[in-house]
């Protein structure tokens, strides 16, 4: 239940009308048909967390296998499936959807809107994500999970080298998931450009929202390359086309080029919103705004663009001309400057502010330490000569775990603790949170730091076992012990969240004195988010009296909008008020469409082509019904008797 009294600016009648238009009754149908961005955001967070647990358990099985030389915990075939599903799930089913979950819950609240721009598309995106994740994970118990590594290099992924359904699951699963990610990205862009509260010009947009929008643009430009790659892989495997077959005029490097045109921006697609979380958390725990706001925006925009020009640094060992490498090497080196800019901005913020050392800030500090170490080894890869020496060794595994756990998981955990009161309406236990932080921080470094060493000693990645002679066994045992520590820490986070939801103290609307608009709503927010849509006067609206006054007594009716399910449309650059728009109500169509797509992809996988044709028909009909203009009263259409 919300924990504050109703807004004094709105009459009880208006509040009753808002509730009537926006609230969803607690029923099974409402559960399946909801389009509320907060419920969908929470579902993204929980589902991504579930896939994270599955991928984490896969990692534990692998580390148990590698704890001793020549162990037999899992077979080579099982190991191949475990490391592929671990990587694929962490990248595609956990990191991006988790951050989309934060975005879904928070973007409308941070910009002062009542929902996302396309609520039904939002619900559709979630259902597709859920079904695509289940589609991929359900192949594991059948021994048919993807087994060629998360970047699936051709020609190893061809039917001849990898028979069975394994890589079909990979190609179709990622194509299926891509629909969700693209839909989500479009929604974020339109929401942030068109639904900002009046007055929130571009120079007053929260850094988290900038990060989400930049990420969404990256998704729009990067994902088509991956989709094309996977479509060609599936066609090669199933219908004997020869896109990656040099003997028939194809090209094996085509896979790598397309994959990394997507894959390197994807690193930033994962890290960027997480960096946005850091910029959102810091002001509350340093008692000041982030230093150098325009430069942090510059860093976000520059990274989003330059990340598309560095992909060949993943291919420095493929024998292309040195001059070609140098163009990409230059971009790979320079991209560290905007990344470094953000780090210095956060350090300066902490230096100039007054630190409040709560759990979210601990995770931010853990992030800075870990991410900088990962960035340091990343810069080493920009040097072609070094990159060629360590390609496909455990050094690379160490590097990207520092970047991804440091750069994404630590900020996500900071975000979970920071926004838990807003999301659930309950406070977490500080002591348990601190234990979780120290276990995760220690476990992470004990697991992955030794990988730099045994990578440099020559241990290749993706081997299911090794012999004792090279001297890798001691370091591997250390990594395995670390991985169990890390798992215990993550388990404590889960325990902390469940405990908070069940027995936590009720949270006030703004327990941290945060600076962005979500803290001016109730905890958890009402279905309509804001009784009065605010008028924004500064970059830190909740610290700004004029913005607070705009939602106080005397707020004009054109920002209450209680006559219907409505929110405000504003201009893209300066957020000038344009008009109020009617938002769609809950619907089962998103679920139905996602279900039809699941049927299509499953029947394609199992070569049930007639069923696939029926599924296509259902998809077309559902889309037609969805887009059919609603019947409106004559009066609304301007028809008079």
């Amino acid at each position, binding site marked *: 239940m919300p924990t504050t009294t109703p807004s004094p600016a709105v009459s009880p009648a208006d509040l009753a009308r808002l509730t009537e238009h926006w609230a969803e009754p607690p029923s099974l149908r409402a559960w399946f048909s909801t389009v509320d961005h907060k419920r969908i955001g929470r579902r993204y967070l929980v589902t991504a967390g579930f896939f994270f647990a599955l991928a984490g358990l896969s990692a534990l099985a692998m580390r148990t296998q590698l704890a001793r030389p020549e162990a037999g915990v899992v077979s080579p075939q099982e190991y191949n499936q475990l490391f592929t599903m671990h990587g694929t799930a962490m990248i595609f089913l956990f990191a991006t959807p988790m951050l989309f979950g934060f975005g879904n819950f928070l973007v409308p609240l941070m910009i002062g809107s009542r929902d996302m721009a396309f609520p039904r598309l939002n619900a559709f995106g979630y259902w597709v994500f859920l079904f695509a994740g289940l589609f991929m994970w359900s192949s594991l118990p059948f021994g048919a999970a993807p087994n060629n590594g998360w970047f699936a290099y051709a020609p190893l992924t061809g039917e001849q080298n990898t028979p069975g359904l394994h890589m079909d699951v990979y190609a179709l699963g990622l194509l299926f998931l891509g629909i969700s990610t693209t839909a989500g990205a479009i929604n974020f862009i339109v929401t942030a450009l068109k639904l900002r509260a009046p007055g929130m010009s571009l120079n007053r947009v929260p850094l988290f929202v900038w990060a989400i929008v930049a990420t969404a643009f990256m998704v729009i430009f990067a994902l088509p390359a991956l989709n094309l790659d996977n479509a060609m892989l599936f066609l090669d495997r199933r219908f004997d086309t020869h896109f990656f077959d040099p003997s028939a005029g194809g090209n094996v490097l085509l896979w790598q080029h397309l994959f990394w045109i997507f894959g390197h921006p994807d690193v930033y697609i994962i890290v960027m919103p997480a960096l946005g979380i850091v910029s959102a958390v810091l002001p509350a725990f340093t008692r000041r705004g982030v230093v150098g706001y*325009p430069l942090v925006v510059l860093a976000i925009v*520059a990274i989003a663009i330059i990340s598309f020009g560095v992909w*060949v640094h993943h291919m420095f060992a493929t024998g292309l001309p*040195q*001059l070609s490498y*140098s*163009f990409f090497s230059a971009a790979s080196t320079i991209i560290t400057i905007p990344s470094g800019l953000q780090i210095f901005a956060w350090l300066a913020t902490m230096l100039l502010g007054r630190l409040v050392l709560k759990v979210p800030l601990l995770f931010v500090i853990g992030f800075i330490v870990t991410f900088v170490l990962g960035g340091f080894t990343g810069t080493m890869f920009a040097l072609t000569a070094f990159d060629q020496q360590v390609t496909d060794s455990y050094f690379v595994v160490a590097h990207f775990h520092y970047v991804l756990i440091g750069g994404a998981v630590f900020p996500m955990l900071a975000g979970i603790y920071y926004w838990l009161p807003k999301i659930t309406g309950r406070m977490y236990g500080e002591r348990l949170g601190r234990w979780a932080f120290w276990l995760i921080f220690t476990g992470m470094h004990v697991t992955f730091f030794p990988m730099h060493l045994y990578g440099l000693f020559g241990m290749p990645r993706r081997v299911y076992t090794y012999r004792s002679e090279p001297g890798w066994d001691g370091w591997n045992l250390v990594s395995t012990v670390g991985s169990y520590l890390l798992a215990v820490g993550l388990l404590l986070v889960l325990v902390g969240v469940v405990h908070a939801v069940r027995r936590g103290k009720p949270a006030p609307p703004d327990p941290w004195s945060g600076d962005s608009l979500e803290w001016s709503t109730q905890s958890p927010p009402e279905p309509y988010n804001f009784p009065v849509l605010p008028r924004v006067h500064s970059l830190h609206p909740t610290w700004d009296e004029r913005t607070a006054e705009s939602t106080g007594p005397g707020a004009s009716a054109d920002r209450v909008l209680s006559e219907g399910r409505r929110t405000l449309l504003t201009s893209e650059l300066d957020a000038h008020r344009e008009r109020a728009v009617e938002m769609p109500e809950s619907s089962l169509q998103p679920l139905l469409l996602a279900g039809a797509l699941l049927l299509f992809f499953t029947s394609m996988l199992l070569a049930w082509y007639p069923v696939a044709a029926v599924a296509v028909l259902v998809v077309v009909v559902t889309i037609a019904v969805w887009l059919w203009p609603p019947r409106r009263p004559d009066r609304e259409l301007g028809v008079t008797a």
Partner: protein
Amino acid sequence: MTTTRAESRARLTGGLLLWYGVLGGAVAWVVHLLAGWSLDELTCAAGSERVSAVPLWQAVGLAVVVPALVTVGSLLVAALAWRRTAQAQEAGADDRAFGRARMLATLGIWANLLFLTIIVLGGVAVLVLPPCQR
């Protein structure tokens, strides 16, 4: 208040110039990267070091010089926009569009400097490396 045609044309030109100042360097760098890389890769793969009658290093050099000049132009426009908005704010203009334009101009200056650096580094490589050395 009515807006005359001349005012709206000036507004459009100003807006387009501002966006050139913000994104010109980025677009120029994309052209530099794609042109330089594909010229080098495709010509060398065909076993040649010439593009028609032009030596490959000169063709790739062109893919450095032209984008670099475009980026310098974009940098100058961004700097000019930054100065103008600063003057307007000093004169007491309280329109939030000025604040937004000033931020975009700041962003443009720094972004153009970054993109110019990448293009110049690519130019250094053209001078140092034989175009088809593997």
